[in-house]
């Protein structure tokens, strides 16, 4: 199984340099949505890497599907996590802020 990377061409170029073959350029929202939907169904993808700010551009339903998915596991990187952040989740579930 492999890692897939979705994002604008600047984002994916570095990952190509690290040897990742499954890189998909997606510059506009529509394309991003299509690519992510297709990758979610691809059984050869183990991890889907997406930029946090791109994650925020996805429709809410798809974003929730991404957050809950185990195969592939989705990682949002960058300063913005996209969707509900881990801190918010912890506060919601535990009632205290443990993410310090």
């Amino acid at each position, binding site marked *: 199984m492999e890692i897939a990377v979705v994002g604008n061409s600047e984002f994916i*170029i570095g990952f190509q340099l690290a040897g990742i073959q499954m890189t998909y350029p997606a510059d506009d929202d529509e394309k991003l949505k299509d690519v992510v939907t297709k990758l979610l169904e691809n059984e050869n993808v183990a991890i889907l890497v997406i930029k946090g700010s791109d994650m925020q551009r996805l429709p809410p339903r798809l974003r929730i599907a991404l957050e809950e998915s185990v195969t592939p596991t989705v990682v949002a990187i960058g300063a913005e996590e996209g969707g509900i952040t*881990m801190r918010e989740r912890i506060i919601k579930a535990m009632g205290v802020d443990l993410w310090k």
Partner: protein
Amino acid sequence: MALTDVKPTRSELINLKKKIKLSERGYNILKMKRDGLILEFFKVLEDAKEIRGEMLEKYDRAFEMVALANTVEGAIGVKAAAMAVKESPTLDLKKKNIMGVVVPDIESQAVRKTLAERGYGVLGTTSVIDETATAFEELVDAIINAAQMETTMKRLLDEIESTKRRVNALEFKVIPELKEAGDFIKMRLDEMERDELVRLKKIKAKNA
């Protein structure tokens, strides 16, 4: 269950008692599950925090490097080098079960490569490209670690939340209501018994 829906009969009381017993058993089991999940959560919390921080650091560095490489080599140069890399890291994704929560278990192979394995010519490119590639390999490594940890955390948190909700619903809503209904039936039955007694006494007095 509203009290008006309850039929004050003995069989209903027996049924209610059974239900209360079952709910209490479920409540105890769910409470244990919640505590177990929280323990499990605390186990991964510290690691997850560390790994997230590390990943962000590597992310910043990697993108700094790629910007530098773009400046030194030009966008085309970087792209050409990137296209030459053929070895891709392979992963093995399994599922692990923590108390009914399915979490990913990822094993990775061959993320880091030597210079020769990368595929682009050493002579044609500068060392900035090498450093960028190394930075990205490190980032990919961190991402793989983080992927497993974060999904585990997210799923655990969701499960903790819903288990908590169930425990509270049983403790503060279901069980008290059932108990109230049981008390109501008991009172009604006693009342009916007293009614009957009085009636009997009256009939006896009339006949005498």
